[in-house]
């Protein structure tokens, strides 16, 4: 793979002389896309040039979120380049399988740390309250920037524009219901109960925005106290911006901590988001998206389990999702008062 990527980069940078790769690495953190990073060094005119690259390649095996869409991710990231959203810069994408065996895209490698939710303290990975508050403010700020992007002007209508009113919510309910229909190995009455509730209680979206779809701790890079890149855009779509807020509030991202996504308390999150966007946030609206978020996460787990069962993915970590989905069902039951 390293040799193939080197050959590819040389073809894309004809002006580069003696291009070599250093620190080539395959990343194992994510369980879906295959991700490789490297530092490319070359000479151009009389200068030494260095650029870090990340290559995100669709996996050979089935993934956890269903169908992959290289083009959509690349195009959204490209569209965000002239906006205040901390999106990594993208360079090229290839839909052909001739180069690396599957579609892929190349983006900049951003240096920094990815704070993860696994820490044992209530504040997650943050050293103190001041650091947590700083990052929390930026986290919500970037989300507000994203939701304010004029997606029509940016040519992103191809993502699928929901019907007005309750259309955004119902579109997502239908999407995840269809996915569940395809991957259910054993009947899931509690998830089906949740789908009935969601269909009945779909809220009216305040507007249609770009929705990240997986906005949380673990999906951004920090450097020198700043969020410098937001990652993992494979669930991006057009929809109700409050869907991202509901996702942030999910229990899997915080355990018993009172801080949503280990960042800030619920009321503080609502208040900050409202002040930055002008969008009114209610508990009822967010509760809908917490139910939907837990259902989506459960279906993602069941998708992984199905891929394992039919042999299209042999990573045994995927198989653990075949019993971990139960935690999302527990959260759904609590939210619905079952």
């Amino acid at each position, binding site marked *: 793979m390293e040799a193939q990527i080197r050959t590819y980069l040389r073809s894309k940078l004809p002006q580069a002389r003696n291009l070599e790769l250093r620190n080539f690495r395959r990343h*194992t*953190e994510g369980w879906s896309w295959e991700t490789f990073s490297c530092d490319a060094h070359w000479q151009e005119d009389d200068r030494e040039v260095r650029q870090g690259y990340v290559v995100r390649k669709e996996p050979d095996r089935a993934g956890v979120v269903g169908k992959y869409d290289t083009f959509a991710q690349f195009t959204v990231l490209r569209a965000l380049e002239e906006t205040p959203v901390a999106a990594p810069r993208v360079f090229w994408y290839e839909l052909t399988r001739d180069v690396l065996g599957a579609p892929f895209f190349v983006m900049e490698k951003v240096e920094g740390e990815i704070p*993860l939710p*696994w820490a044992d303290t209530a504040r997650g990975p943050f050293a103190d309250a001041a650091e947590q508050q700083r990052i929390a403010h930026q986290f919500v700020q970037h989300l507000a920037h994203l939701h304010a992007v004029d997606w029509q002007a940016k040519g992103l209508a191809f993502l699928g524009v929901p019907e007005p009113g309750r259309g955004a919510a119902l579109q997502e309910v239908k999407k995840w219901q269809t996915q569940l229909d395809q991957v259910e*190995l*054993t*009947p*899931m*009455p*509690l998830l*089906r*109960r949740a789908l*009935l509730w969601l269909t*009945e209680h779909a809220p009216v979206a305040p507007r249609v925005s770009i929705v990240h779809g997986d906005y949380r701790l673990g999906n951004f890079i920090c450097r020198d106290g700043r969020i410098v890149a937001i990652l993992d855009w494979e669930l991006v779509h057009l929809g109700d911006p409050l869907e991202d807020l509901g996702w942030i509030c999910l229990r899997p991202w915080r355990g018993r901590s009172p801080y949503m996504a280990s960042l800030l308390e619920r009321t503080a999150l609502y208040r900050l988001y409202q002040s930055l966007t002008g969008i009114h946030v209610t508990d009822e609206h967010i509760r809908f998206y917490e139910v939907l978020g837990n259902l989506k996460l459960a279906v993602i787990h*069941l998708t992984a*389990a199905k891929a*394992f*069962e039919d*042999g299209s993915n*042999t990573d*045994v*970590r995927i*198989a*653990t999702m*075949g*019993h*971990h*989905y*139960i*935690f999302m*069902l*527990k959260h759904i*039951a609590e939210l619905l008062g*079952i």
Partner: protein
Amino acid sequence: MVNSLPRLFAEIIDTLDRAGQSVTDPYARSQVFAVIDILTNLAHRVEWKRVDLQVSVDELRALYAEIVTLLGENGTCPAALTSLRERLAAVAQGSPSDDLLAERDRLSRLLVDLMKETTAARAQIPATLADAIDQQCNAYLRRQLERDIALVRRPLFRRMSQA
């Protein structure tokens, strides 16, 4: 757990085989291959615990018997739910099956139908009846969830994610 035992065992054995070849300590390596040997002999002797499946099956049958009673009270069943009542009655009175896993899945699918049809017919049935059916279904869902959660052990997310 939603995956089948044969599939789980097959991949566990293959994974240990691949991982075992990277173990450099001879004693540790011998332990890995001994584990593979045991698992290979265990795989075709193991099935899901019958008592867990039996409890689910019995509770679902009891649920349907209760719903049949609710739907038959006061001598009339709402027209919108007549067909449902007949299907539930047939199951509640039916003979048990040896294939408990298939039986549990069949009865669970019927629960999905029950909830869907009750929701669809809500405007045509008394609110008290709809609420009573909901309560019975929710009580079953809650008990089944508690049983399922009791079987899951603390996840090893951190160790699985950090290579």
